[in-house]
């Protein structure tokens, strides 16, 4: 039954896999460091369980050729939409986001996995075209694939996740080829929609954006989190305060320190050296993904890897940018590092898909 081709195994990129593990290990270590002995100390154990689940998912998915998913993506995509609809009715809220489904002791966020389905669906759709540039119809149809689930996630109230669908669309459209006039029209649309979107933001979300431009305006209100995060990072200095020594994190000054702000905890305890090392791991990962995209056997492989790359890059940029005080605060976790099961499993699944593309680059 299990008939693994030797060439398949040779295609497995160990360095890449180790980089992934290193990121997750660093994340888990910081989660332990900052939550052990506090009311949040269950997060480390949960994270380990999620990590095991993620690895199982990673290797199980690796066994299947990625074409199996792309061939059945229509059904899988529709099933995904159905689950999102379901969430709208039976989901429960965490921090105003009605995007969670209870699975026994754990809560799951289907929208995280939906991103992956959107990537495969869009990759599949765009790769069917052999033209140098996408036509208007294709652009609009592709847009529909992406923005239908986006809208549903928005309806769940999860702004942060909804925003992450956009880079998938942008990256894959650009890669597949977009005519200048279409690009201009799209940019103009964005420019019009963005200010209009301002009025639909909650007050606190507007505040988070305003605070970026005037950080000192209300340090105890909206700016508090950003200010505490900057203090945490800055006070880490060159080599950091050491494991479990981060006063900002352990003193409870930093909200969401084990999830969205885990990078600040790492920067405080491991300093500039540790933070740059983490950025280096991500950069290494991205260049491996670039290579995989280039060397993929077919266009759909390239597209899938590129979509995952765009999604990851967006997450890393938005998360670290917000933690460093460069961008407004949005509820976006740091891939592989932040505590949280749904995103961890989704990203390992995405990585598995990319690894699958790499392993099967020569296989016919």
């Amino acid at each position, binding site marked *: 039954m299990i008939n693994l081709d030797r060439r398949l195994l040779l295609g497995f990129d160990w360095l890449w896999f180790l980089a992934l593990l290193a990121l997750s290990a660093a994340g888990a270590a910081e989660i332990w460091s900052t939550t052990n002995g506090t009311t949040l100390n269950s997060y480390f154990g949960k994270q380990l369980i999620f990590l095991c689940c993620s690895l199982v998912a990673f290797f199980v998915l690796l066994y299947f050729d990625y074409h199996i998913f792309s061939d059945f993506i229509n059904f899988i995509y529709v099933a995904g939409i159905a689950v999102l609809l379901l969430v709208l009715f039976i989901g429960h809220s965490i921090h105003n986001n009605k995007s969670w489904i209870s699975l026994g002791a754990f809560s799951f966020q289907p929208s995280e996995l939906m991103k992956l389905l959107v990537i495969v669906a869009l990759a599949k759709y765009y790769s069917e075209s052999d033209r140098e540039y996408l036509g208007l119809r294709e652009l609009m149809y592709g847009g529909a694939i992406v923005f239908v689930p986006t809208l549903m996630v928005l309806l769940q109230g999860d702004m942060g996740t909804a925003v992450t669908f956009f880079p998938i669309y942008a990256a894959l459209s650009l*890669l597949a080829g977009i005519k200048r006039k279409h690009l201009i029209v799209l940019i103009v649309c964005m420019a019009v929609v963005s200010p209009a979107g301002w009025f639909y933001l909650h007050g606190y979300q507007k505040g988070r954006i305003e605070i970026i431009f005037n950080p000192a305006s209300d340090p105890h209100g909206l700016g508090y989190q950003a200010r505490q995060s900057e203090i945490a990072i800055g006070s880490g200095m060159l080599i950091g305060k050491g494991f479990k020594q981060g006063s900002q994190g352990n*003193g409870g000054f930093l909200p969401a320190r084990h999830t969205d702000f885990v990078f600040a905890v790492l920067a405080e305890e491991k300093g500039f050296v540790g933070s740059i090392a983490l950025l280096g791991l991500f950069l290494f990962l991205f260049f491996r993904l*670039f290579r995989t995209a280039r060397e993929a056997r077919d266009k759909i492989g390239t597209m899938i890897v590129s979509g995952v790359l765009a999604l990851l890059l967006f997450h890393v940029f938005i998360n670290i940018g917000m933690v460093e005080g460069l961008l407004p605060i949005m509820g976006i976790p740091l891939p592989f590092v932040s505590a949280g099961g749904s995103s961890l499993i989704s990203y390992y699944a995405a990585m598995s898909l990319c690894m699958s593309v790499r392993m099967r680059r020569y296989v016919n």
Partner: protein
Amino acid sequence: MVVQQDTNKQLIQQRLNFSRVPVLLVFLLLAARLWQLQIIQGSEYALRAEHNRNRTIELLAPRGTISDRNNIPLVENRPSFDVLLYREEIKDKAATARFLTEKLGVTSEELETRLRRSKGSALYHPILIKEDAGIEDISVIESHRRDHPEIQLGPQPRRLYHYGKLAAHLLGYVGEISEQDLDGNLFPGSKVGSLVGQTGIERIYNNLLIGKDGERRVLVDSVGREVGLADETESVIGGELQLTIDLDLQSVAEKALEGKVGAIVAMDPRNGEILVMASSPSFDPNAFSPHISAGEWNDLKNDPDRPLQNRAIQNSYSPGSIFKLIMAEAGLEEGLLDDDPAVVCHGSATYYGRVFHCADKNGHGALHLEQAIARSCNIFFYELGRKLGISRISEHARALGLGERTGVDLPSERSGVMPSPEWKMKTSRTKWYDGETISVAIGQGAVSTTPLQIVRAVSAIATGGLVTTPHLLKRAEAGGNLNWPDRRISIGVEKSRRIREGMWQSVNNGGTGHNAAIPGLDICGKTGTVQVVGNENKKLMREDSEDHSWFSGFASRDNPEIAVTVFIEHGGKGGIVSAPLAKLIFGTYFEKHKKSLNLQTEGARSQEPEARMMPKVIR
């Protein structure tokens, strides 16, 4: 088709390769920001993290205690608590304000001024909201700790003046530093909210009295709970001060002044140590500790008797006949009294076309200096004044310290006025009239003196010319300058003997000062009665038109240990009102000293036999 697919693939490859650039840029941006936060501004953020984690609680040092010359404590400290607001902990400004106004009775205006005043201070410095919290306030705050962690109690030692109104003027009081003092350099190291001496000894020796504030740095978490102690430096109590004041004498003086307006000063003529400095009416400095209410303050400020004023040094009065002592000194020095021509007093005399009266309308008859002092004859001194002229009078009076500050270690001392032609030219741009000299000769006219100046001048006459710097500080634990410069005027003990003789006669030989006499004690003195308004007005306004009443003297004649000056505003005749009060002081002083002398001699006697026996035993 294949070709097209290939070009398509090439295009995609190109686009992929190109998109590595923005990825690199994103990472460069993130890394650059890390560099900025952690390397360039790292130490700054490290400091802010420390402040986040540490809360510094000031441990205010109690001020040094103040005691009298016999080490009886006059001023000490008592524990108390202040209500402090930690702005960093405020969760809901409105709720905090409500709590403070409704539960702790802080008015919203007061809250506003306090917040405004500390606007510039660092956020982690607490703001003082209410001083000396009562037991009710303390229990309210303790029971709302959870809801209002931003409001806390801070220990603050407060001044306790054991004897209330006693010696209030010289001790002074303590209060929050004024904006004016904050800008000045009188109180180095003080800051907004510091408690500093506002008047008296508390002010002038503030820097000897202040201790060293301590600090308790505690580790706190984000909700302000203490999770550990980082560091503690205990506060060090301020240095002790010992004053030259004698509590027993001071009490007698204050009691004697009760219901009167005036001052009593007593000093050791040999060294300038002030034994008594009482001013009446007085105030209770405890009312200022911690904070005087606006009502009480206004009452003190608007009281027509001005209880806040230290009449011993802060107000000057015509010295009246007391000035005759200075005239006598000038006359002796200038040799005008050497051949001792007797002056005949007919009750009045005419100088420069104006009739001047003596106190005794019938005249004193022929007098020498001694009798002139004892009976306080005006005519004798008119004549002496005419001979001396204003310049010489002024010169000698200044040598005795009139018209200048004595240099006593108290703030806001008045210098009084010793007129001279130059002084008149300068202040009113008019010439000196010789007639004015005649007025000055009996201590009227423009001359004005503080009671302390008088006690110093009389001390100089008592010691035969030693002009001291009167002072209150005997010993300071924290060091401080104990060098009190004095000077000698040339008259000498012999030449001045006749003045002392006159003063002795005044008290002991039927003179104006006989009410100060104590049998067995050679008390010397001089009375003074200063007309406030003309005789015709006297009938119209009774109270404020009474004469000012002086007595100044020393004891004993041949061995002066204590000089006393009594001044009563609108008291009446000096010999009747002031002399008996001086007698009380002299009496108490010698009573006390006889006792201690007796104790000493008794002790010496009881030791004597033993001392004699001891050598025998050894031999």
